[in-house]
Structure formats: structure tokens, C-alpha cells
């Protein structure tokens, strides 16, 4: 939250901007924010060739009851240790495609109920290594110029993530760790963490999940992996909440299929029972 102040009387009204950076979309999250900004598609995955140009369009719609000003920007992103996508203006990621991407228009006003096409163009460099390159186009609502605003104004942001794959897809990765940790804001509660690493250059999404098996061999609980990209060269934590008590001696088994020729499996037996709280 920030408060913008007048400068030399250039704008006489006081404006309280609450910038709710609601990243609506990077995975399969809802297409419409509550404030009425719609974006489709939310994810673009395209096979490309070096030295080519790829163009297409997104559809941005205003389902609110007032005209909305939208500003576009091209961003990098990553997924943090809490499984939340983080968008940054610039990163040094070798697999960033941010500099290849241009969108138009970058600044547009949309009347209520209307839709606009936002065109995008990727110009792929001639010399690039095989792999999945990723970046995002973010569309943020902004104050309408000349509009007298007082009180609270809520700005939202909708994001389309791009995954541009060069060359033949060959996912490479491995399970790294499986452990129990306390919740960061509640040390009395625990969660199970599965850490995986993308050792290749292509993005993949693991299929499988966590099984909790009793000492007698009975499957007590199964939790699938959240559909989330594991970016090239990165380690990624998958979090499994503990909603029921896990008895002592239970075996935590994780099975992961990343689309290669094998299924990886790891397990871990906690020393003591794990309570949901």
C-alpha cells in the first residue's frame, strides 16, 4: 500500500492506491478476477524454431461496470519456495524469453463489457540452445486519466505465462528430498515437502503424488502433485498439507513421472507421528 502525494499542486486530489497485486493467472487459475478483468489464454505453450517469428493474440476483457485502463508489461517469473509465482521486471535467467516478446497495445482503455485483442510477437534469436524459455505478459489496471478518484481504488493484474520450446522435448529431473517441516507461520503444524530438481533444459510438470502408507501397508492418504511447472535448472518444492494424523511408522512415499521413460519413487519414514496441529 502506498500513498501518492501531490507534487507542486499538479494534481489536487488525494488518492489512496491500494495495489493489490493479484496475480490471477499463471497456472489453471480462474479467468476472471473479482474486479472484472478477463484474460485468455492464461498459458501459452508453443514449439518454436530459432530465427523465426511467432505472433498471436490474447483476449483481454472488461467485465466490470466501468471503463478500465489497462497497462501491459513484459515480465520474468519464477515459482518460490511456497509454490507461489513471482513476477519480476527483469532477471538474469538464461531461459528468459522476456526480451523476445513484444505486445501491442501496451496501454488501452476498455469500456464495460468490451474485449480487445492484445497481439504479441516473439522474435526468436538465431543462436539459441534447445530448451524451454519462459516469460509472462502482465496486464494491470491503472487509474483512468482525468478521472477524479477519491477513497480506495483497487488495481488488479492478470497474467499470461509463455513457454516457448526450442528443439525436441526431453525432460530431465530427479527427486531430491522428502521431509517434514513446520508451517512458517504456525510452528505447531507441519507439512510434507517434496523437493524436485529440473536438471535439464525443458520445463516439465510432475505427475504423481504423495502416498501415506501405514506400517501395515495400508494406504491412508494420497495427495497428487499440484500442477505446477518446474523450470529448467531450478529446484522446486511441492508442499503437501497434513490434514490428518500420520501415525508413527507410517511410510511417506512419493511417485513422480516427468514424462520420461521412468517413474521415480522415494520414501521417508518420520521418526514420530505427525499431528495435524
Amino acid at each position, binding site marked *: 500500500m502506498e500513498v501518492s502525494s501531490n507534487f*507542486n499542486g499538479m494534481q489536487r486530489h488525494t488518492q489512496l492506491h491500494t495495489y493489490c497485486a493479484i496475480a490471477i493467472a499463471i497456472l489453471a487459475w480462474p479467468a476472471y478476477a473479482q474486479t472484472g478483468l478477463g484474460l485468455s489464454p492464461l498459458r501459452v505453450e508453443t514449439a518454436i524454431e530459432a530465427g523465426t517469428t511467432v505472433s498471436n493474440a490474447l483476449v483481454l476483457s472488461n467485465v466490470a461496470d466501468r471503463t478500465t485502463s489497462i497497462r501491459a508489461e513484459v515480465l520474468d517469473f519464477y515459482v518460490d519456495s511456497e509454490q507461489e509465482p513471482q513476477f519480476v521486471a527483469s532477471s538474469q535467467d538464461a531461459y528468459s524469453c522476456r526480451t523476445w516478446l*513484444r505486445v501491442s497495445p501496451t496501454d488501452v482503455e476498455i469500456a464495460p463489457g468490451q474485449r480487445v485483442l492484445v*497481439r*504479441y510477437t516473439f522474435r526468436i534469436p538465431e543462436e539459441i540452445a534447445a530448451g524451454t524459455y519462459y516469460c509472462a505478459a502482465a496486464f494491470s489496471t491503472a487509474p483512468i486519466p482525468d478521472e477524479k478518484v477519491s477513497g480506495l481504488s483497487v488495481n488488479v493484474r492478470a497474467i499470461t505465462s509463455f513457454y516457448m520450446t526450442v528443439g525436441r522435448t526431453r525432460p530431465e529431473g530427479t527427486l531430491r528430498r522428502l521431509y517434514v517441516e513446520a508451517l512458517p507461520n504456525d510452528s505447531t503444524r507441519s507439512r510434507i515437502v517434496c523437493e524436485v530438481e529440473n536438471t535439464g533444459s525443458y520445463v516439465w510438470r510432475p505427475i504423481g503424488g504423495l502416498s501415506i502408507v501405514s506400517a501395515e501397508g495400508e494406504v491412508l492418504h494420497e495427495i497428487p502433485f499440484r500442477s505446477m511447472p518446474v523450470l529448467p535448472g531450478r529446484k522446486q518444492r511441492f508442499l503437501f498439507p497434513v490434514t490428518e494424523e500420520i501415525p508413527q511408522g507410517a511410510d511417506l512415499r512419493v511417485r513422480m513421472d516427468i514424462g520420461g521413460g521412468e517413474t521415480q519413487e522415494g520414501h521417508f519414514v518420520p521418526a514420530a507421528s505427525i499431528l495435524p496441529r
Partner: protein
Amino acid sequence: MSRPLLFCLVSLALALRLAAEDLRGAGTISFESFHSRTPEYTGDRSEGVALNFRTLVPRLGLLTTNIEVFSNRAGWRPGLNYASLDDVRIGAHRWKFTVGNAQVDPFPVQQPFPNVPYPRLNINGLRVEVSGEKSYYSAFAGQQYFLQGTRISLRYPTGQSVAGILYRRRVAQGIEVGIRALHFGRPSANTAAIEFAWRPRDSLRVFAEAGAPASVLIGATWETRRALFRSTYVRQNAAYLPVVGYLNGARRGPFAEARLNLFRDAQVFGSASNTETVFSMVKPLQRYAATSLTAGASGSLPGSIALSAQFTHVELRTLSGSQTNQIAAFRAARQFRVYTLRAELRQIATLDTRQRSVELEHYVRLRRLSLLGATRLQRESTGVRGTTLVYRGGLQLTLARLSLYASGEAGRDLAARSLLTTTLTQNTAAGAEWRIVNGWGLAVDAWSARLLNTNRDLLALSTVNPIFAAGAFERNQWSAYLRLTHDFAWGGATSVGDLGQYSRASTPLVGVIAGQVHVAYGDGSSIAADIPVSLDGDRIAMTNAAGGYEFSNVPEGRHTLMIDERQLPVDYLVPTVPATSVVVAPGRRVREDFVVQPSVGFGGQVDTDAGMPLEGIVVRLHPGNRRTVTDREGRFRFDGLREGDYEIDVDGEARVAVRVAHLAEPGVVLRVKARTTEKPTRLIELPAN
């Protein structure tokens, strides 16, 4: 076994054989029965079977067969019997072969004058048609026949043979020429004609035909949304088209017609003609001339009131004298939701009679039921018939798959002895149509008609050929008709009608659409690569490094080309002209070029003199009436602009510094000036990035 029946059985066997091959096809079989009580009409009892089927033969074409065999008092009679193979693709031409009955329009170039009647050639023989990109050929030969019967049409040979060739070619955009050559046997005659059609624009058509024996037809039509003008002059010898059964008199004279749509639905119209006709074989009308004038207007008033008025004047001059016929009519109608009231005043004046009438008609239209009732009061002011009342009514009822209708007339109708009016009276009909399940359908109707008065002059024409005698002058006739049909299909076909469209679409004659896309800069242009060109919205070709694109195997006909907005790179503006229509001809290459405009833009930053970025400052762009607000770093940006000169205004009263940077490609003209609304701005130009 008669030949038609043998033909029927062979075709049926062929249909069953093709059905066994699991080809796509559809057909209709029906039983028809018609009974009438008119002693002088030979077709008073006809019944028989009709079979029509269409089958798509892979790599060959669309096979259509129609078999109709009926019996009447004279024995077995053929109906419409033919087999045709259509959409046969050979090279860049489409062929059609027809064996059996065929109707030939003798005009290879379509003549646009409905006021000029001419006979069609009904032949029983062979016909071959070839259609290409610019040309059309037709060759045919056979025996002519005429049709007889109101509900079931039976074919009777006229004893006249005919062979001919029709040829049409488009010699230039909007210009077609045609040639017709015909040979008639018994009586032997040869005719030939050359035709010319010019269509310089959609609204204007000029047509001319000259032939031997000496004949000429020339005219023009000009039709727009607001007006229609049509004018013709015809001079034709009696041997122009010597078809037996057609009233082949010599005729000559001009015709003109005009219609003006004034505003909303208000319209005025009129026509005039002066024709002279010579019937060498018809004594009473051996030579007659007619001058005709028609004028009228129609329109509507507030309150759903529709008005129309029409006046017709015909002066007929024969060897026995002349007579003038006039009809004046005024009609008014008003609609009250489901109820409509119509009124008509009419006066008919001929040589020896003057008839006036007023009619009121009530019409109610509900969702499933329509009712009509009308009363006409007629008075003949000269003659001895006096005043009469005529009543008529009708209803139509639709119940799901069943539709019922009935109409009737009562009273004594006064008919004028004029070429304008040959009136049927006490015409009563009732019928039903029932769409039974599984493709079965049943239609029945019965009607009676009594012709109280016939025109003595037209009766004279009935002595010329049997068609007039059979069709137009039956008296006191009642009839009943029944038709039981069954539609069937195989191989995934839906109906007989759909197969024609499917056939043409599945065996198209194809051409190529190609072109180049340029990007226009202020002082020139260059080729544009990676531009998506869309064909009919479902095929996309990207321009290559030379700016070229190509669509091959494009079916003949009209297509829509456009720059695909979704895949157009952001370096270019979305075209303001959305689509272009092109016509593809078989085996031909159509070129269509496009020009795209570069998309340019610029961004900047608004700072204080001290270098502090200013957020929330409104920056306005001129021209374009666009605006934006600076962000947290004081930055702003405009893109999607045409190249040119722009100025930006920065709202505020403070002294600020505006720095701008071009985002344009090299070579693109974009000059930017910046100023604040109130005070001068220090402009710092940055190099293009």
C-alpha cells in the same frame, strides 16, 4: 415390357447396387394418383410411381436419376425420365451428361428481361454441358415433347426433333458473348443468334441479341436499391424459335419500365409498351397491336396502414377493330396485431362493359391457424348482369406434422371479356399434408373450378395447338390428387438436396491465390515477411522472405482474403480494410496484394527539473486523442501509432522535463514534440533504441 418401365428397373437396380457399395446417396420414391372429371381432358385418371435418387460416385461425379411412369386411359405414359452425371471433373472443366428428358434454355447468355417471353426446349435425347473458367458449352439433340396435366405432367412427343449448340464466353471483365445454333426437324428450320451482355457495374446490364431469321433484341436494366429502369426493343420473326406448341407469332415493339423507391417503403412505378404481333395461323388475331400503360404507387402511413394504387390501360387493335381495357385499383390494409383488414376498390372498363367492385377482406393469423374471409360487391354498369356478391374464405391449420388447408368461393362473379381477365370462379379446394415419421409423407387435395366466362379471342388461340386447349379452358372441372412419398438415404447422406452441394464441394475445380505483402513507409515501401494472410478464415499462409504468399488447391468461386489480425506481428498496424473478395477460376492463378502499415511508438519519462520522476501525470497525444498516465518511475508510452508527426501535452502547471525515445524501426518517420499545458517544457531528445 415398355421402355420407360425397363429404364425404371435398370435404374432401380443401379441404385441398389450403389447402395450396396455403401456410397453416399439419397432418394425419394412416391406414388401419385390424380383423378379429374373433365370429359375433354384425356388425363382424367393418372396414377403411377416416381423414383428420384442421387448417388455420389467416387472420383466420377453425382449420378441423378428420375423415373416417372404413369398410366391413364391411353395406357402407360412417361413422366419425367432422365439420368444425369454431374460434377465430372476433367482438367479445368466440369462436365455434365444427361440422357432422357432435359429442358434447355435457348439463351446461352442469361437475358435479364422478364417481359420478353421465349420458349424452353423440352427434349428427350442427349445433352452434354461443359463449364470452364470463362466458357460454357452445351450440345444436345433429341425429340421435342410437350407437357400435359395439371398435377401429374405427362410427356407427349410433338413429332419435332431439335439439335443445337450453345456457347458462352467471358471475353473481358463484365462482358460475355454467346452463340446459339439450332436445327429443327419437321418442319425443318435453322436458326442462329449471337448474344452480347455487358455488365460494367453490378447495377447496370446491357443485353443484345441478333439472329437469323432476322431478329433483334436489345435492352438494358439499371437496378439499384433506390431505383429500377428497364427498357427493351424486340423484333422477332415468326420463325425466331419455331417450337411446336409455342405460340410463334412475329412480334416487334418497345417496352420500358421504371420503379423508384422514394423513402422508407414508398414506391412509384410505371411501365409502357407498344407491341405488334402477327399470328399467321390465327384468324381473329391475325394481326394485332397492343399499347399498354401501367402506373402506380405504394407506401405506408403511421399505424401500420399500407396503401397502393395502380392503373392499367391497354389498347388492343385487331383486324376486326380496337378495344380499350382499363383497370384501376386502390388497395388499403391495416394490421391490428394478429388481425389484418384489407379493402380494394377496382374498376374494369372494356369496350362494352364497365365493372366496379369493392372488396373487404379479413385476415387473422394466429400461431397455428390462419383464417381469411372476404366479400366482394360487383356492379356492372353496362350490360345486363347487374349487381352481384362474391364470397370467398380460407383457412390453414398447422398441427405438428400435419398441415390442413381449405378455400372456397361462392356467388356469381362477373368476368370481363378482356384479355386482362379470364376469371375462374367457384374455385374450391381442400387438402392436407402430413409428414409421417421415418421420411414418409402424404399429401392429398381436392378442388373444383368452374370457368363461367372465357375470352373469345383467347379461345381462338386454342385452335392452334393442344396445349391451350388442355390447360387454360377447362370448364366445370373437379379433381383429386394423392401423393405418398418416402425419403431415404444411405452412406451418411441427409437429403437429395444436400448431395448436390456436397458433390460440388467434394469435387471442386481448383485454382491458386497468390500475392505479395508490402509494408508502406512514408517515402516508399518494402516487402513484408511473416505476414499472415487468411483465406476464408480457416487457412493461413505466412509471407516468405520475399513477401510472397500462396494458397493452392483453392476451390473455384468467391473467397475472402484478409490479413489475419491475430497472427499479425505487433510491428504492423491492424489493417483498417478488413477483407478482400476474390474469385478463383479453375486452373487459374489469382493475384491479390496487400499493404500493411508499420506500427510505431515512443515512450518517455516525466521528471521534475530536479530529476525526480513524476507519477500520475496525464500525458496526451495529438493527433489521436489518446492519453496515458505516468507510472511510478514517471514513464509513459504510446504505441500502435501510424508514422507521422505527433505532439504530446503534459498536464500540470509545474516546470517539468520530458524525455522521449523513439521505438520506431529505422526508416519510419516519427517526430515528437512535447510541451506542458501551461509552461514551456525542456525537451531532451534521446537516441532511438
